[in-house]
């Protein structure tokens, strides 16, 4: 940590007990800390509340006054949604498409960025500018032609129609290029003189040197693919083919007012990204910073 607190504990320990006045002077800081923690608690409270609701029998969810913790833990909302809605199917769709998107985005971006960074071919600056321009282009504005195109290709309601447009994002290419540019060119040249192919230079020198950013990018790409709503919502129509974030919006309308079940589906849909974040917190932070154009 770079910043040290105004009163370092080690220093305070060697001093005689604090006078009342000094104790009081610390009070405002303690109050601010307390309020910060309280606010953080309030911030996650809706998530706690959703989780607790999902563990109640349906009748208890609307009981007044609301019970802040369930008296008995009841999984009936979960068993109901697993038996009566295609949640498992949607889950599988999401897992498969998010994993495929993550692997392909990283692989294709890496290959492209490697050529842009290491191979001196004519037009590479021009190509790089074309890819940078993609940063500014909002795909949402051209949803209609994108849908028409995917429809002409026969890929509406097809997992390929779901995946392919999500591979066209330039962010990972630009990040990889920046990282590859920083690797001393002698490293690659030495291997090439020894007869290594470009693919070998990439996968045995450049990739191992960039495992850290690759890992961070993989996690944020996976989370983004999992969470993506608009395109999956547009392109997939069959109930059985939906991804889970789109699927759960249908469950909600099908149940009417059934909060335990609605919250159970919400919790189920959120579990992978929440765990990905809690386990790889530092990686997610690094990845988010990189994609925002700032290196953390």
């Amino acid at each position, binding site marked *: 940590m770079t910043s040290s607190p105004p009163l370092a504990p080690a220093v305070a320990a060697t001093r005689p007990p604090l006078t009342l006045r000094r104790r009081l002077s610390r009070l405002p800081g303690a109050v601010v800390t307390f309020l*910060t923690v309280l606010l953080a608690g309030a911030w996650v409270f809706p998530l706690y*509340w959703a989780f607790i609701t999902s563990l109640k029998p349906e009748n208890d969810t609307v009981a*007044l006054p609301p019970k802040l913790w369930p008296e008995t833990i009841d999984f009936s909302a979960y068993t109901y949604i697993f038996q009566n809605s295609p949640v498992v199917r949607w889950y599988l769709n999401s897992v498969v498409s998010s994993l495929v998107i993550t692997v392909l985005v990283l692989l294709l971006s890496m290959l492209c960025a490697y*050529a842009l960074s290491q191979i001196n071919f004519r037009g590479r600056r021009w190509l790089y500018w074309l890819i940078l321009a993609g940063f*500014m282009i*909002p795909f949402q504005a051209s949803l209609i032609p994108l849908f*028409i195109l995917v429809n002409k290709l026969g890929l509406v309601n097809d997992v390929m129609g779901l995946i392919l447009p999500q591979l066209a994002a330039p962010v990972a290419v630009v990040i990889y290029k920046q990282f590859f540019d920083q690797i001393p060119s002698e490293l690659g040249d030495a291997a090439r003189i020894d007869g290594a192919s470009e693919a070998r230079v990439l996968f045995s020198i450049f990739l191992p040197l960039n495992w850290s950013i690759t890992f961070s990018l993989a996690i944020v790409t996976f989370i983004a693919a999992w969470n993506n709503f608009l395109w999956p919502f547009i392109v997939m129509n069959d109930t059985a083919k939906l991804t889970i974030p789109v699927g759960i919006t249908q469950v909600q309308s099908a149940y009417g007012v059934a909060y335990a079940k609605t919250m159970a589906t919400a919790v189920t849909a959120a579990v992978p990204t929440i765990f990905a974040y809690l386990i790889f917190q530092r990686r997610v932070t690094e990845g988010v910073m990189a994609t925002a154009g700032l290196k953390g």
Partner: protein
Amino acid sequence: MISPPARPPAAPVPPPPGRASQVRQKYLTAALLVLPFVALYLLFLIYPTLRVLQLSFTNADLSGNGAYVGVQNYTRLFGEPTFWTALLNTLLFILLTAVPNTLIGLGLALLILRLNRLKNLVLAAFFLPYVLPVSVVTNVWNWVLDSNFGLFNFLTGSTVTWFQDPVWALPSVAFVTIWWTVGFNILLFIAGLRNISPEIYEAAALDGAAGWRLFWSITWPNLWPVTSLILLLQLIAQFKIFDQIYLLTQGGPFDKTLVLLLYAYREGFQQQHGGYSSTIGVVLMAVILLVSAIQFRLLNRGERS
């Protein structure tokens, strides 16, 4: 230097390839590496971006078939009150989210940075909503803000139907959006605050600056590149707002929360007016490109300094 390991007797070396074939080899390799991404990029991002412009001058349906109609879509769009409602609501939504989200992000970043042991835990609490799918966020808030059984109305005694109320619907969606996304701004602000050199603070402290004075004379000006970046990112993101609105209010009540992208969605995917919907897309694109161009210049300036 370490001497290279002994090699087996050299195999017969193939004759050195000609320069022309070496160059050809290089271009072939570059093309193979670049092609998979660039092909998808051109097909699924660049081509639709150009096609939307062309479609906006036609009366195409959702299959893409239609005749050229000149600027008819544009005259209809600018004469259509619903378009102005959607534009106004979008701007109102930006006003309710972009600036508050930036300022709240800064405030929370400052609060988090002064913590010691609790720092990571508190940061995680504020960032956690950001990793959730939008439909989870809207489901959770639909429940918490439910007018009859929701916890919020129970605690406050309010009877407002937050997402169906003509006055409260848009601010409610804005609030949910801030709750969902402020963690991203906090991360960027924390990075920005850490980049301000401690020596500047020490020098200012020696000159007797403290508290608010220190914030306004040191923190705020030094943080401005990050603040402006966040403001512009917010501006672009909120201009494209769709998901939360669609899931929480569907644009209602009485189009009070109808925004541009939702208008384009209605016209395009519900009414099959592909050409007219593309016109809305072009307007959306034009504004976003303008804002992006400003952002790009700011970012480049930041990199140079």
